[in-house]
């Protein structure tokens, strides 16, 4: 354990960063590098595991342990590592194709198991590294290299999918908003269990401006619905009210402040967070950001390791000789 506090520099590797000029990944990287010292965890106990994609280059640029694995499979490798090494802090870095297309199954199983992984999903709504095909989060009708007449697939809503997969922590933030991204990282690392953070990330080369609504100074204040636990969910102009099992966006003032939905990130029923997640699928003018859901559930690796220590406490550590000689045996003299 280092006594001298670490700095951003300590977490910056000697590798040349290889993203396009203006790529949203840069700001996410530098925010992460600035945030890590605050964790107070020695560098050698932090591991970043990524799949394949532009975003998955991330681990090379951090001076911690890191693995740039294969497409879509980072959660499987990270799970094996986290389960066998509960002493480590393991991040998964992934893209919308990596985590939701080829890697979709591993993501949802990791979330339901609640493996102690902090999963950063860089959502640029495009396949960047392969030069611009549509992804599972691309809007329907998108014209790309592989869909010259427009894509036909209904996109996944990553937040809804994660909640449908029993996720205990789900949040959304934005590449360029260092402050909000940092707060979100803080909440995710504080959470015991799987934490999924969807990060809106701009790809200036293949999908530029996908998130202008929430980035442009003219529009962002009104479109961003800030989710802060215990406070009404609001943008500068709008708030939320209940309508049946749904949540409805209303103009501030059109209802009394007390009718506005007060955010409850700890609501045991994911139905609430799910209703919040649908706002972006229903209309495209308002985007909730912050922590949708953050509930306490035992982490998978802690359960696995408890099961082992409990049985050892009960029956004592295994003895090889007694295992080999267990059951019906006989002696030949």
């Amino acid at each position, binding site marked *: 354990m280092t006594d001298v506090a670490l700095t951003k520099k300590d977490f910056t*590797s000697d*590798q040349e960063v290889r993203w396009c000029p203006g790529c949203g990944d840069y700001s996410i990287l530098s925010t992460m590098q600035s945030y890590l010292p605050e964790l107070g965890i*020695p*560098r*050698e*106990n932090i*591991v970043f*595991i990524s799949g*394949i994609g532009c975003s998955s280059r991330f*681990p*090379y640029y*951090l*001076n*911690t*342990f*890191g*693995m*740039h*694995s*294969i497409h879509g*499979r980072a*959660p*499987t*490798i*990270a*799970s*094996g*590592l*986290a*389960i*066998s*090494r509960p*002493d*480590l802090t393991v991040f998964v870095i992934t893209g919308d194709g990596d985590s939701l297309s080829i890697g979709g*199954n*591993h993501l949802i*199983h990791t979330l339901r198991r609640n493996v102690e992984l902090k999963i950063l999903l860089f959502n640029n709504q495009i396949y960047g590294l392969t030069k611009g095909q549509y992804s599972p989060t691309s809007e329907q009708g998108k014209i790309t290299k592989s869909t010259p007449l427009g894509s036909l697939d209904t996109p996944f809503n990553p937040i809804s999918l994660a909640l449908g997969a029993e996720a205990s922590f789900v949040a959304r933030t934005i590449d360029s908003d260092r402050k909000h991204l940092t707060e979100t990282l803080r909440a995710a690392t504080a959470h015991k269990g799987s934490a999924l953070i969807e990060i809106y990330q701009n790809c200036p080369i293949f999908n530029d401006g996908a998130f202008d609504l929430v980035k442009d100074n003219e529009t962002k204040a009104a479109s961003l619905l800030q989710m802060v636990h215990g406070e009404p969910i609001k943008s500068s102009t709008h708030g939320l009210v209940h309508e049946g099992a749904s949540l409805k966006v209303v103009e501030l003032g059109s209802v009394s402040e007390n009718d506005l939905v007060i955010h409850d990130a700890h609501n045991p029923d994911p139905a609430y967070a799910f209703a919040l997640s649908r706002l972006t699928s229903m209309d495209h003018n308002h985007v909730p950001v912050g922590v949708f859901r953050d509930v306490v559930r035992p982490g998978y690796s802690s359960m*696995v390791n408890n*099961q*082992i220590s409990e*049985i*050892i406490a009960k*029956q*004592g*550590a*295994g003895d*090889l*000789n007694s*295992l*080999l*000689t267990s*059951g*019906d*045996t*006989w*002696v*030949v*003299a």
Partner: protein
Amino acid sequence: MAKPVISLDQVVIRFAGDSGDGMQLTGDRFTMDTASLGNDLSTLPSYPAEIRAPQGTLLGVSSFQLHFADHLIQTPGDAPDILVAMNPAALKANIRDLRRGATIIVDSDEFTTRNLTKVGYATNPLEDDSLDSYKVHAVALTSLTVAALSNLSLSRKEAERSKNMFALGLLSWMYHRPVEATENFLRAKFGKKPEILEANLLAYKTGWNYGETTEDFAVSYEIAPAKMPPGRYKNISGNVALAYGLVAASQQSDLTLFLGSYPITPASDILHELSKQKKFGVITFQAEDEIAAVGSALGASYGGSLGVTSTSGPGVALKGEMIGLGVMLELPLIIVDVQRGGPSTGLPTKTEQADLLQAMFGRNGESPAAVIAPATPSDCFDMAMEAVRIATTYRVPVFLMSDGYIANGSEPWRIPEVADLPDLHVEFAKTQEDFKPYLRDPKTLARPWAIPGTKGIEHRIGGVEKADVTGEISYDPANHDFMVRTRAAKVAGITVPEIIVDDPSGDAEVLLLGWGSTFGPISAAVETLRVNGEKIAQAHIRYINPFPKNLGSILEKYSKVIVPEMNLGQLAMLLRSQFLKDVIGYNMVRGLPFTTAEIVEAAMEVLHD
């Protein structure tokens, strides 16, 4: 006055009945009692792919064959001397395997017109002359059992369930098997259900007494113990031996055993067995699929555990890409492939050896991995430890190629002394200045095993080609060529024991060369051939990639080399390309192990062509 006792040197018994009749359990018990008497033995369980195929149909037949003797034996036996058939389907499905003059014990109660027609018997074989060349005992197993249990408050259906114990009792009497062990076993198994326990014990005893008392069975048999090296023995199947070998290796290396697995026949029992070993700190992770299974194992290896994944052929077909990452990362990884009939879903419960080339080449790019194969059920223990030695010493994926035959089959295993087990400790990279993740050990060419949590050696690795020494991403053409050749050289340089040729006369011209589970039948064939005065040499390959150093010279020494395989010639292809030797393949792909007779015949043709 007591019935006469005849002593035999060996017997092959097959129990056959419906999947529901408990034949596997019956066979297991008889095997245990036989083992405890010190006979050498070998077993062959066989059951349908369906959980419970339709009652009374040929498809539904489940059987268990046991060969035991007063001398060392190699196989479950070609042709049963005695068949226990619990119904017409069991008789019909197995009769063609019997030797003429064999004994048949049937449950006559089951030979109803309905059951007979179900399997296409026009007339009742117990009544027509179709079984004249066999000794047939028609025993009313069901009614005798039910009658014996009449005092218990069981429904007829429940009572009938004990008829396998009646059969077991009868056979135990015939072959003088001890009763205590089985009675204890039943007590342990049904302790919580006293009624059922009573029923089973009673049926078992009744069967025994039936043999003792009725005229129908005039004689009983005894088989003296086999002369085996002194020591403590237990009867063990390949899957259990393999699981034990992994546990032993983890103890001998002080590394946590991490199994990432997805259930699949016939490999699932390895997962089941290891999940019982949490006391040893063993972590078993039932993943969502085979890719996640091997991925989690690789992640565990990266963290300093013993990462293992167990599966069968279809699973290996899914793991290829991840194993390729293991090749690139140069981390220890063990892939257990319990081979079954293919291609595709194929014959899930049958045995085969057709995954060898998949293990060798089933990945993109030049992606070398070590490949080894156990020869017998108990050899799975030793080869599991060998897999660990190779994986951890050379930091490379290792395929451990078992198959359905040795995985489910069993034999007596001389339990090793823990003190005699090899030391498998290896070193992790230590804290150091200017750490180089791909700086190799000049002897093994292994790179450091540098695990997270080690201060000062933080580094990044990945599946993109890496620069020699530094491990950084490199697109340099010369470096790629160098790294490709280095990874190949590392595997080619793995130290494996030399192969031993068994050639007593020393001047045999024909060599029988096998790999994996064909060891038993080949060895039995070689014995037979030599008894018949034939000169034949035998050698068995347990290390396939790399081959033992002396293999080439051995191939040269023999003018004719026969390679029996349960595939279309996969080892043969490797031998031919590497040694340009015109080896003679003897191939059968029937989902069954070779019989001794088949190999004898094949060898005779070559010996006398």
